[in-house]
């Protein structure tokens, strides 16, 4: 049902990319794509499918996404990362579909002239991605399955679904 979708932004030397794919992710290949020649370090976050969640054994996971919105939200995160951190370029790739234990679900790579900014931006990006990008995972066990619902912030709960845009972007 999902297909490879890719958007690339070119602004002179800056080349960021966001991508959603059902293919296996090659962490090294993704990291190498964010390298501009003037930069000295790349920091990469590689998220993957855990075998145990709260002590219960997962057989595999299914990821589903609202693809066009997910790509837009990923692009917004990159814009906001450039505003906050001195980074050169960013790549975010999320996999959808059935993922076996140990498979990489998401890769975020950030290149920067000074590695501090790359560490900060990469950590901020994964935190925000888990909060704002419309992708969901279903954990499949031997005896059932569950769609994982993310934790809404207290502000979101208090608002009873009002004002979501502000909660997501302030």
């Amino acid at each position, binding site marked *: 049902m999902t297909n490879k979708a890719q958007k690339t932004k070119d602004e002179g030397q800056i080349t960021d990319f966001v991508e959603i794919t059902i293919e296996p992710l090659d962490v090294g290949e993704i990291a190498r794509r964010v390298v501009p020649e003037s930069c000295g370090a790349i920091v990469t976050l590689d998220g993957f499918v855990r075998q145990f969640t709260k002590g219960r054994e997962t057989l595999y996971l299914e*990821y589903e996404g609202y693809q066009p919105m997910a790509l837009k939200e990923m692009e917004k995160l990159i814009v906001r990362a450039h505003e906050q951190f001195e980074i050169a370029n960013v790549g975010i790739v999320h996999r959808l579909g059935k993922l076996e234990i140990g498979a990489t679900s998401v890769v975020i790579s950030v290149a920067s002239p000074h590695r501090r900014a790359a560490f900060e931006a990469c950590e901020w990006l994964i935190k925000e991605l888990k909060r704002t990008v419309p992708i969901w995972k279903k954990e499949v066990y031997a005896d059932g399955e569950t769609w994982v*619902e993310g934790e809404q912030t207290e502000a979101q709960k208090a608002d009873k679904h009002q004002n979501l845009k502000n909660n997501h972007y302030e």
Partner: protein
Amino acid sequence: MKVQVLFFGATADAVGEREIEISLAERTKAEAALAEIVEQFPQLKSHSLLFAVNQEYANGGEIIENGDELAVFTAVSGG
């Protein structure tokens, strides 16, 4: 007017559909549109819902237009 409503993950399972079309009165606000959808599918009440209009998170006050793409889903869990 007619709008498309998309469901994903837990909301798609609850509703039993991934995509439906509903009729709304002209100038319905996002907040009221979500309330109508939940009334039509009360099984959604057991979930904490997020709502998007045209692939953007809604703040509730948006005026829905004919042909808009709405989406109802639970708090995201990617990564």
